[in-house]
C-alpha cells in the first residue's frame, strides 16, 4: 500500500513538472516579455524623441531634386539602418489577431520606431561627417527571416534609410 502511494506521488510530481514546462514556462515568458518589451519600447521612443529634438531644423527631405537655392560644394551617400524585433507577447497577440484579421496594432509601433531610428541614424551620420542637409531620402523595409505562425523564430525586420548628403558652398546662395 505504502509503496503504491509513493509511486503515485512521484507520478504526480512528474506530471506537475510536465505541466510547468508545457504551460507554465511559456506563460511566464509571455508575462516577462510583456513587461520587459514594453519597457524597452518606451525607453526607445524616449531616446528617439530626444535625438529628434536635437536634430530639429536640420534639412532632411525626400525630394529627388534639390531646391534651386542650394549651392552645393560636395556630396556623398549616407545610410542608416536597424534590425528590430517584436517581443514574444506582442508576437503571440499578433498571431491571434492574424486569425480574425484586421488591424494588428502591436506591429505598428515596431515599424514606426524602426523607421524613425533608421532616419535618425542616417541624419546623425550625415551631421557627424559635416554635411549640411540630406535630400532624396528613401526608406526600405525587408523582412529578415521567417516568423513562424506560432510566434517562434526570428521576427526581425530591417529598416534602411538612405539619401544623398550635401555640403553647402554658402547657405542659401
Amino acid at each position, binding site marked *: 500500500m505504502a509503496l503504491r502511494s509513493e509511486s503515485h506521488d512521484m507520478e504526480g510530481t512528474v506530471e506537475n513538472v510536465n505541466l510547468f514546462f508545457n504551460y507554465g514556462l511559456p506563460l511566464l515568458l509571455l508575462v516577462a*516579455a510583456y513587461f520587459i518589451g514594453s519597457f524597452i519600447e518606451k525607453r526607445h521612443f524616449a531616446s528617439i524623441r530626444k535625438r529628434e529634438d536635437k536634430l530639429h531644423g536640420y534639412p532632411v527631405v525626400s525630394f529627388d531634386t534639390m531646391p534651386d537655392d542650394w549651392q552645393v560644394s560636395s556630396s*556623398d551617400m549616407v*545610410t542608416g539602418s536597424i534590425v*528590430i524585433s517584436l517581443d514574444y507577447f506582442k508576437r503571440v497577440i499578433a498571431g491571434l489577431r492574424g486569425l480574425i484579421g484586421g488591424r494588428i496594432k502591436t506591429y505598428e509601433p*515596431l515599424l514606426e520606431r524602426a523607421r524613425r531610428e533608421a532616419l535618425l541614424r542616417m541624419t546623425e551620420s550625415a551631421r557627424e561627417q559635416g554635411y549640411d542637409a540630406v535630400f532624396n531620402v528613401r526608406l526600405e523595409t525587408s523582412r529578415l527571416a521567417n516568423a513562424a505562425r506560432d510566434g517562434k523564430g*526570428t521576427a526581425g525586420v530591417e529598416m*534602411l534609410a538612405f539619401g544623398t548628403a550635401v555640403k553647402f558652398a554658402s547657405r542659401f546662395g
Partner: protein
Amino acid sequence: MDVSNSSIVISNTESIPGRNIVEFYGVVTGNTVRAKHVGRDIMAGLKNIVGGELRGYTELLQDSRNEATDRMVEQAKSMGANAVVNVRFATSSISQGAAELFAYGTAVRVA
C-alpha cells in the same frame, strides 16, 4: 557610410549635386551573401523574446552592405568612372540563415 574609395562619389540621385555628367559607363553591381554567426544567432534568439534592436544583425547587415557597395565602386573604378549615380539597395533572404545584400547603380564620369 564609410566607403574607403574616396575618389569615387556615390549618390542615390540621378546626378551628382553641383556637377555635370559627361559620360555614362552603364550599370555596375556589387553583391555579397552572408550567413549568420551562430553566437550572434543565439543572442538574437534571446533578444527576440523581449524585442528591441538585434544589434548583431544590424552590424552584420551594415558590414555586408558596405562590402556590396565597395564591390560596386571597384567595378565602376575599373571602368574608368569617377562617380556612381542612382544607387539602389536590395536585400533578399536566400535561406533561413543567409541573406544577399545587393547594391547597384550607374557608373558615370562627372566634371
